[in-house]
C-alpha cells in the first residue's frame, strides 16, 4: 500500500507499434528505484505516462495513488523531474530557467532557504547561471534541470537518464544529492543504462525490455539469479575435479569458472588445497544480469 508508483499491465501503442506491452512497476516509498533498460525499451515512455504527458493505451498507472493523466497538476506539486535530454529556453539565462521552474513548482525564489540552496547547488555542480540557454553545452543544460529539481524539496524525484553528458566528477556530486534527498525521506525513480550508477545508488531495480519488466527486486535478490566468477593463475593448477564449477575455461594464462552464488564458500577449501595464486572472486555485476537479458540481442546483432 506504501507504493508511490504502481503500474499494472501498462500498454502504450504508437500506431501499430507497442512501446509498452504490459508493464508492471512498483516503487516503494523512500526507495531509490533503478529503472534499467537499453535505448528504446520503453523507459521514457513509462516516465511520460507517469508524468501525464502521454496517456496509457491500456492498463493502469498510479502515482501517490492518483491517475497521472487526470490529476497531473496536483501530482506535479509533489514531484520533480529531470529529463534525459534537457532543452532550455535559448533566450533565458540558465539562472532564469532554474528560477522559472522552481517558481512554477511553488517555491518562493526570494526566500533565504531557496537562495542558499540554489547557490550551494550551483557551487557543487560548478555551474555558471549567467549564460544564455543556447550557449550551454549538453552537460550544462543537464545541470540546469538537476539544480532546478534539487533546489526545491519534493516527495518524488523522477530522473530520466539524469547524468547523460555529465563528467565523472559531476556524477559523484549527483549521487551525493540523490542520497541527500533519500535521507530526507523522498522517493526516487532513476532511469538509467549506466549500471555502476544504479549499482551504487539503488535499493531496488526493475529491468525493462521491449516494454515489459523482465526482472525486479533488490540487488541481492537479482545477484542470486546469477553466478559468481572465480579465476586464478593457470601456472601448475587446473579446475579439474571441482564439482561446483561451471563453464570452465583457460585463457590468457588464467583459469576461469563460475559457481552458483550460494556455493562460493564450499569451493574455497578445494582452492586452498591446490594453493592457487592470483585468486579473484567476482560477485555478479549488474552488467552480467543485464547481459543475460540482452545478450541474445547482442549476438543476434553481430550475426546480422
Amino acid at each position, binding site marked *: 500500500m506504501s507504493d508511490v508508483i504502481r503500474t499494472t499491465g501498462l500498454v502504450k501503442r504508437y500506431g501499430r507499434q507497442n512501446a509498452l506491452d504490459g508493464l508492471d512497476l512498483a516503487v516503494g516509498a523512500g526507495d531509490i528505484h533503478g529503472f534499467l533498460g537499453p535505448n528504446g525499451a520503453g523507459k521514457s515512455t513509462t516516465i*511520460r505516462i507517469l*508524468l*501525464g*504527458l*502521454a*496517456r496509457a493505451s491500456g492498463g493502469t498507472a498510479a502515482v501517490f495513488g492518483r491517475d497521472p493523466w487526470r490529476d*497531473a*497538476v*496536483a501530482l*506535479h*506539486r509533489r*514531484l*520533480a*523531474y529531470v*529529463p534525459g*535530454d*534537457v*532543452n*532550455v*529556453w*535559448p*533566450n*533565458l*539565462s*540558465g*539562472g*532564469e530557467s*532554474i*528560477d*522559472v*521552474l522552481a*517558481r*512554477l*513548482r*511553488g517555491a518562493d*525564489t526570494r526566500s533565504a532557504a531557496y537562495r542558499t540552496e540554489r547557490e550551494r547547488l550551483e557551487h557543487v555542480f560548478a555551474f555558471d*547561471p*549567467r*549564460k*544564455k540557454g*543556447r*550557449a550551454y553545452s549538453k552537460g550544462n543544460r543537464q545541470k540546469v*534541470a538537476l539544480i*532546478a529539481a534539487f533546489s526545491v524539496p519534493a516527495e518524488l524525484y*523522477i530522473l530520466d537518464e539524469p547524468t547523460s553528458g555529465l563528467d565523472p566528477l559531476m556524477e559523484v556530486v549527483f549521487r551525493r544529492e540523490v542520497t541527500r534527498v533519500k535521507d530526507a525521506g523522498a522517493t526516487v525513480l532513476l532511469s538509467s543504462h549506466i549500471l555502476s550508477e544504479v549499482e551504487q545508488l539503488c535499493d531496488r531495480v526493475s529491468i525493462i525490455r521491449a516494454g515489459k519488466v523482465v526482472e525486479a527486486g533488490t540487488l541481492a535478490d537479482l545477484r542470486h539469479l546469477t553466478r559468481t566468477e572465480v579465476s586464478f593463475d593457470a601456472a601448475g593448477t587446473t579446475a579439474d575435479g571441482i564439482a561446483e564449477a561451471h563453464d570452465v575455461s583457460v585463457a590468457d594464462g588464467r583459469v576461469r569458472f563460475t559457481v552458483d552464488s550460494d556455493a562460493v564458500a564450499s569451493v574455497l577449501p578445494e582452492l586452498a588445497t591446490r594453493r592457487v595464486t592470483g585468486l579473484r572472486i567476482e560477485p555478479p555485476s549488474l552488467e552480467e544480469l543485464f547481459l543475460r537479458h540482452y545478450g541474445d540481442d547482442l549476438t543476434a546483432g553481430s550475426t546480422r
Partner: protein
Amino acid sequence: MITLLRQRLRRDLWQFVIWIGGTAVLAAFTVSAVNGSYGTETDRVNLLATAAANPVIMLFRGLPSGADLGAFTGFLILPFLAMMAAFMSSFMAVRHTRADEDAGRTELVAATPAGRVAPLVATIVHGLIANALLAMLVAVAFLACGLPATGSLVAGLGSGALGFFAYGVGLIGAQVFASGRSANAFGVWVMLVAYLVAGLGNALGTPSADLQRIQSAPLAWFSPYGWIENARPWADDNLWPVALCALVAAGLAAASVALQSVRDLGESLLPERRARATAGAALSSSTGLVWALTWPAILGWAIGGFVSGLLATSLSSVLSQAATQLPSVEQLLAALTQGGSLAVGAIVIFFTLVGVLAACCGVQIVGRARQEEAHGTVEALLATPVGRVRWLADYVAIATIGAAATVGGAIVGAAAGLAGQSAPDWSLFGDAVVVGAGQFVAALVFIVVTALVLTVLPRATLAVGWTLVGLATVVGLFGPLYRLPDWIVHLAPIAAAPTVTGSGTDVQGLWWLVAAVLIGGAASLALMRRRELAGDG
C-alpha cells in the same frame, strides 16, 4: 566542397520547389490576370493614372513605365516576385550558416577536412544556384505567357539579383548575430525596410504629364528594390541597375567570407552579454514565461503597426498636395472617390495591412508554442504544476495581446500622423479606430484557428497557420485587383472585418468573426485537455 553543395541542394529540394515554383506561378498568374482584367490598353492607362495619383498604391506596387502589357505586368508584380526571392534567400542563407552553427552541426562539418570557410563558400554557391534558377523560371514563365523575351529576361534577372542581395544580407546577419532566430529577423527587417524605402521613393517620384510613367525620387536609389524596378523590364530593359544589385550582393557575400575567416566558430560579431543570474519578478508564472519568450517579437510587430498607421494618415496629406498641383490628378480623384474620400481609402488599405501584421504576430506566437513542444522545453514545464490547457491558454492570451499591441501601435501611428499635419481631420482617427478594431477581431480568428490546429494536428501547426495568413492576404488584399468574386474575397477574415465606407461604418461579417473566435477558442482548449504531448517530427 562539391559534397557540401550537394548536401545543401538535397536538403533544400522542397524549398526550391515551393519558393521558386511559387514565384514562377505567381508571375504567370499575374499575366493571365492582367489579360483578363485589364485586357485593353485603355483599362491599363486608366489604372496607371490612378496609381500615379495615389501614393498608397505606389507604395505597394512597382514603378509605372508605360501601359503596354509587359510594362504594366512589371509594375504590378515585379516587387512581389523580388520579395519572394528575398524571403526565400535570406531564410536559406541563415539556415545553412547560423542556424546550423547554433544547432552544432557546423562544428561537425568544420572538424572534417572541409574546414571553417569551405561550408560558407558552398552556401554562397548554393544561393547563386537558387537565385539563378529562380531568375530562369520567372523569365520562362513570362515568356510562356507571350511577353517579349528581353523584358522577361530582365524581370527574371532582376528578381534573382534581388534574391541574391537578400541572400547576402542573410549571410551578414548570420555573422553578426549569435542565433539563427536573430539572424532571420535581421534579414526580414532589412528587406522590409528596403521595400518600404523603394516604395516611398516611387510614391514621392515625379509622374510624367500623361501619368503613365514615374521618375523615382532619389530615395528609391537607396534600396535594391529601387534598383531592379528602375531596370524597367519591357520598357527600357535597362540591365545596369540589375548588375549593380548583383555586384553589391557579391560584395556582401565576400564580406561574410572575410568575417567568417577571422572569427571563432560559435562566436558572433555582437557578443552575447552576461545574462542575469536570477529571474525577474515577471517570470513568476507560466504566462510570464511566454511573455519573456515572445516580447521582442511583439515589439517588432507593434513597430510595424506603428509605421503602417503613420503612413496611413500622413500620406493622405501628400495626396491632397498632388491633387492641387496636377489638374489631371484632381479630375481622377473626383472620379474615383464616389462619396468616400481617398484619405479614408488609404486608411482602409493600410489598416487591412495592419490586420495582416497582427495575424502574423498571433500566428507566430501560437506557432512558438508548437516549437517549444517540438523542441522539448515544454516537457520540463508540464512536469511542474502547469496543466496542458493552461499552457495553451497562455500562448493564446499572449498572442491576443500581441495582436492588440500591433493594432494599438497602428492607431497610435495614425494619431501621430494626424498630429503632424497643419490642419488634421480628426474624423480620420475615428475611422482608423473602427477599422483597426475590426482587423483585431480578424487577427483573433487566425490565432484560434492556429491553436485549434495545434491541438488536432500539432505537426502541421506552423505550415497551416502561415499558409492561411498568406492565402488570406493574397485573397483579401489583392483579390479585388484580380477581380475575384466577392464571396471568395470575404472568406478572408481581413476582408470580412468591419470597415468604413463613404456612407459610414459597414459591420460586414463581424458577428461571424466573433463567433468563429469564441467557438475556435473554446474548442482548442477543450481538445487540449484530451491531447498528449507530441514530440518533434
